[in-house]
């Protein structure tokens, strides 16, 4: 099925005129990768992020079908609010997942395709080795251990603000070396 060229407002309006499988598919295609990204950031787990996608889309579809989304321009805000509540539920290990999946499982669509960046690992090694010592340490410590600015500030004997500056500069140099636009 081809993507519909509509903005969010027009897409929401299409739900107001009765069942529209094409609009539902477009909503899934558009929002699933975005919700998944939110899930990765806030849940730090791919499976949990997939659960989030399913649950948030079910709630959103339900709201659109029943006309509960009164302001069509607020689709992203509605989805964000639903994401937040669902993340809280998922963190609490709520049993709602199974109930919702049982109730609406037939409406679920396969995982939406999304952009997957490919990296040349040899090149990345080379680019990392070409960073200044402090930059390399900050980048690796940040991304390996997700150490806080305070941890790194202690290690480097600089302020947290300085750590942030070093990380930004290092990231810029890395992306430049890897041939990615800053």
């Amino acid at each position: 099925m081809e993507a519909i060229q509509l903005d969010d407002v027009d897409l929401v309006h299409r739900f107001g005129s009765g069942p529209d499988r094409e609009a539902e598919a477009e909503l899934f295609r558009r929002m699933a990768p975005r919700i998944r990204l939110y899930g990765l950031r806030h849940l730090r787990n791919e499976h949990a992020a997939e659960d989030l996608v399913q649950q948030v889309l079910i709630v959103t579809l339900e709201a659109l079908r029943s006309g509960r989304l009164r302001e069509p321009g607020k689709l992203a805000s509605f989805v964000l609010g639903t994401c937040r509540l669902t993340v809280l539920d998922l963190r609490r290990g709520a049993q709602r997942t199974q109930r919702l999946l049982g109730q609406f499982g037939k409406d679920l669509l396969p995982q939406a395709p999304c952009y997957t960046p490919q990296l040349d690992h040899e090149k990345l090694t080379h680019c990392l080795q070409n960073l200044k010592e402090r930059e390399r340490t900050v980048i690796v410590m940040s991304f390996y251990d997700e150490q806080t600015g305070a941890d790194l500030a202690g290690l480097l004997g600089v302020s947290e603000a300085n750590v942030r500056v070093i990380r930004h500069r290092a990231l810029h140099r890395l992306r430049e070396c890897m041939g990615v636009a800053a």
Partner: protein
Amino acid sequence: MSCSTPIDAATLADYWLAVLPQSEEEMVDLHLLECDRCGNRLREVIALAQAVRRLASEGSLRMIVSDAFLHRAAADGLRVRQYAPAPGGAVHCTVTAEDDILIGRLAADLTGAKRVDLCICDEHGIQQLRLPDIPIHSGTSSVIYQESITFAKAAPDTIMILRLVTFDETGAERLLGEYTFNHARSLPGPGQLYEPHPE
């Protein structure tokens, strides 16, 4: 796919690392639910973060690390082999196939040192590589150097001398400590020195 207010990669990295102020994080959350262009940029940052993480866990980067890093590596099930020669001292060392990370813990008095370089020298003391201005904190008493385990596993029996140097007010170099590592290869492979058997 256009975006009138693109979020740069550095901010997205801060977002991924959860170090943005809450109000800014909420703005990024909302923006990413409306904008695929910035979403794709975040995916690039995440891919980079994951690749750096993988490289770090392979132990193949020459770099200065922290105790927190080593604790995390051990907690992740990585095997950390560590040697800690005293300043001016030497240590016999090796690396096995099971090792994941190789560490030299270099004790030194870093009090007052503003800039410290780590010099990697051959057995004659001739510098082969210099890591300038390594991250140090003047309150600590050692530098934790990670040698590339890929390099160490492939290296033959060899002697490596590490030197920590600092600089005085005139810019002249001052030795903080010298550490000798007598590496004995314990893995079979092309890097092993050839030893002819007697007839």
